[in-house]
């Protein structure tokens, strides 16, 4: 009976969480739809959440592009298909690794930051103070962060794609003596603008997930400093799981199965 009890409680908790995030999304969307946006705050958040994540996104993308090239270039040359390495690196960067790796890295940094900041505001009554002043915490706090990440994550993904391909190209030339020209020609043939745009669409969705989960966890904080800690951990874990799951669903829907 205890197992059933736990399963029931867990299911209700999950549904409450999903309902809460859906409501937050709808209310945020309503403010954006009515153009009730605090632009200065959105720019400040774009700088903090986006621009300040650039270095970490570029570094992880550079090394990922290099490692894909390292793993594939030597073997590809051995099998006489070295001229396909550029296409492989560019293809996987634009469609999968660029958006997803950027999102995971940004989630680790910013979902925690959002949840911690809003959680601290909840426990120090600042969120209640906003309501007492007749102001909406969603409009004041969530919408700027949502817009900032929805815009900045696709931009970061473009940089991540470029850096990943450059890293892969340099390593392919160094390790397997594949010329830059061969690498770029292969990349151009393998990746179309459509692949890049679909990758950016994924990044936009991931940006929204990070902002909404971070905000929801922060605004749901209960129980002082310990509660802020729980909210922060929960924001990172939940957003990363959702990014992976959404990536699979979006890949399936956008790129389909080409068996």
């Amino acid at each position, binding site marked *: 009976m205890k197992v059933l009890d736990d399963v029931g409680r867990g299911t209700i908790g999950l549904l409450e969480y999903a309902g809460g995030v859906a409501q937050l999304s709808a209310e945020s969307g309503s403010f954006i739809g009515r153009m009730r946006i605090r632009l200065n705050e959105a720019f400040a958040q774009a700088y903090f959440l986006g621009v300040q994540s650039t270095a970490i996104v570029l570094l992880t993308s550079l090394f990922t592009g290099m490692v894909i090239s390292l793993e594939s270039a030597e073997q590809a040359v051995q099998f006489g298909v070295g001229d396909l390495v550029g296409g492989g690196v560019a293809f996987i960067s634009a469609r999968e690794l660029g958006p997803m790796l950027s999102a995971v890295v940004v989630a680790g940094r910013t979902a925690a930051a959002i949840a911690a900041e809003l959680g*601290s*505001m909840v426990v*120090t*009554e*600042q969120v*209640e*103070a906003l*309501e*007492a*002043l*007749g*102001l*909406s915490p969603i409009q004041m706090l969530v919408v700027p962060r949502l817009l900032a990440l929805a815009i900045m994550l696709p931009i970061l993904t473009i940089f991540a794609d470029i850096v990943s391909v450059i890293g892969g190209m340099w390593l392919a030339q160094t390790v397997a003596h594949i010329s830059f020209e061969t690498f770029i020609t292969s990349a151009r043939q393998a990746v179309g603008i459509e692949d890049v745009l679909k990758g950016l669409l994924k990044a936009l969705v991931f940006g929204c997930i990070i902002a909404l989960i971070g905000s929801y966890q922060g605004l749901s904080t209960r129980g002082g400093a310990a509660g802020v800690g729980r909210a922060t951990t929960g924001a990172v874990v939940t957003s990363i799981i959702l990014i992976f799951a959404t990536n699979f669903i979006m890949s399936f829907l956008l790129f389909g199965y080409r068996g």
Partner: protein
Amino acid sequence: MTLARIDNVSVRFGSKVVLQNLSLEIEEGAITCLIGLSGAGKSTILRLLNGLRKPDSGHVYVKGVDICCMGNQNLIDFRSKVGFAFQFAALFDSMSVFDNVALPLREHTKLSREKIAEIVMRTLETVGLESARDKFPSELSGGMLKRAGFARAVVNNPDLVLYDEPTTGLDPIITHLLTDTIVRLRKQLSGTAVVISHDLQSIYMMADYVAMLFEGAIISYGTVDELKRSTNPIVQQFLRGSEVGPIPI
């Protein structure tokens, strides 16, 4: 004349009954102090009065309007006419004192920047914080934080100001200063105030009426003299601060 009326209100948190069929009238132009044990539901009453909390049953009328039935937009408009000074000030960390106090005017009025600056500085002068205008909350002492919170609560000239434990945890001099500030602000605004306090000296100094809350209900209401003369043993034990009496410890 009554400015606000809490009518037969009950509030529960989970299985715990915080307020049970409570009724209270707030006189216009007066300072009404709420006293009672910690956890008695005093802060809940303040939150009922500005619509931050809705009762499980009963009604709350402010200026004759039932705020329990208000939609979100009306509630936002209503709250801009009620000032709320939080127990720990709840100033926004990321803003200076000036910006904290200016926020209600920037968000709810179409006043020019110059006019807003003039009103904010006048309000900061009233609470003695004009020199702290550019400081951030982390740079302020406890008393300064509370006064900045007062300034933000009264800057848009509200009809009703709610103070949640404004003197708790402060030394006697600052306590006296804050109490005096509340009295002065009420006179300047010609408004109404509801104050939660555990400090009896402050209450005797500022209160026009005192309501004592016990086990979810008002057990005593009247002027300070009437409170002191109360024959209710619970009131007398509370005023004496004694462990001996009918209040369970």
